[in-house]
């Protein structure tokens, strides 16, 4: 039962690669955005807040199609990137990472924002009276105190990214070895006669990976909280 075939392994590893790249690329953007939303009041803030959460409620196929329109070869951004920087998203694994990054973004931003909201701003004031510039305050006080939320968000985002299906298959299709992640591999196997056993194997792998990510998120959060409160 548990002989995972090379093409299945390829899909598993690709999912992991896509998840890791999507999470690492999205995290700095998520931190910057969460910090801005937590700390500043400005015109259009609620629209940005809603836009961040949109992938959570929009049908994934819509998000995927919007990505195709924007980042596809003839898309507004995609065309420019391909012509000027040689970066192509359409039908590449990088496109799968982009789709997963967008889909998991709200899950990444939310815990980070909550943990920045929870920081006592008077500590940041104390830091500035000790000579820390805005950037130093952020790096030495805000960021370390928000760490539990950042780690929790990253793991949650990663767990979402490795399982993403709808937006990915719409944007970059289902090409074995290039864009076929574990979810699209399972989908293909279910469509194939005699694919049931292989599908079941990947289902189990998928459950194990997701569980591991969730448990890791809990452990990280608990450890970081303990570190911050000093016991």
């Amino acid at each position: 039962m548990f002989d995972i075939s090379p093409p299945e392994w390829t899909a598993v590893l690709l999912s992991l690669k896509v998840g890791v790249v999507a999470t690492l690329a999205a995290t700095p953007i998520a931190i910057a955005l969460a910090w801005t939303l937590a700390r500043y009041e400005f015109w259009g803030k609620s629209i940005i807040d809603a836009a961040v959460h949109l992938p959570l409620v929009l049908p994934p196929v819509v998000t995927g199609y919007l990505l195709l329109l924007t980042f596809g070869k003839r898309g507004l951004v995609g065309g420019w990137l391909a012509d000027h920087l040689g970066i192509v998203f359409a039908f590449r694994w990088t496109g799968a990472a982009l789709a997963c990054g967008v889909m998991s973004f709200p899950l990444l931003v939310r815990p980070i924002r909550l943990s920045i909201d929870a920081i006592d701003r008077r500590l940041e004031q104390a830091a500035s009276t000790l000579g820390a510039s805005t950037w130093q305050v952020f790096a030495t006080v805000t960021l370390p105190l928000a760490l539990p939320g950042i780690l929790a968000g990253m793991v949650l985002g990663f767990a979402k990214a490795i399982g993403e299906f709808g937006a990915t298959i719409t944007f970059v299709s289902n090409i074995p070895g290039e864009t076929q992640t574990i979810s699209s591999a399972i989908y293909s196997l279910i469509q194939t006669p005699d694919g049931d056993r292989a599908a079941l194997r990947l289902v189990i792998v998928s459950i194990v990976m997701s569980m591991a990510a969730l448990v890791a998120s809990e452990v990280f959060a608990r450890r970081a909280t303990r570190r911050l409160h000093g016991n």
Partner: protein
Amino acid sequence: MLRVEVSKQLGSFSVDVAFASEGRVTGLFGPSGSGKTSLVNMIAGLMTPDRGVISVDGEALDDTTQHLHVAVHRRRIGYVFQDARLFPHLDVRRNLDYGRRMNRLARDTAQEARLNEMLNIGHLLDRRPGQLSGGERQRVALGRALLSRPRLLLLDEPLGSLDEDRKAEILPYLMRLRDEASVPMVYVSHDPDELRQLALQVVMLKRGRIAAFGSPEILPA
């Protein structure tokens, strides 16, 4: 020398204050809500006056006629808060060292040793703020502010959150500090006894205005 001449509207309350003090310890006295903390926050730069001038040793830190407002982190004014505000993620050693690191100052081990001894915090260096008592926390906060080598030290009711026994424990440290450290201080309190022991000059505030200014003898019994 500290020169303050500011006005600031805060909702229906306003602060309108002018004084200049030479003393090593200037006491700011008044009941809660008299504008003490707002005034100290303006000196620290955490709050900007609507109009006026704040200068330390002749250097202007705020001057609204020149649109001058020196940023908090460039003022070199230490601040000891009532609630200590130690960084919970750093141990005592790194809390004490924070100001030196942010200002990229050279290490002064002699001063560190002297302060550890004077404030009796040498045995706490490896602890986290969460493991300290209220009095210990306040002593570390004092040391942390002084090690950033400020030219003026603001203390906003540093004993306010402590019970009588703890206050009696910290007061001698503050008096030693006044006599041994060469940093002028602004000491905020609503306790006349505390100020009688520490201050050399007193600014009495009432509803955001100066009610009296002079030696500690002006304090109510």
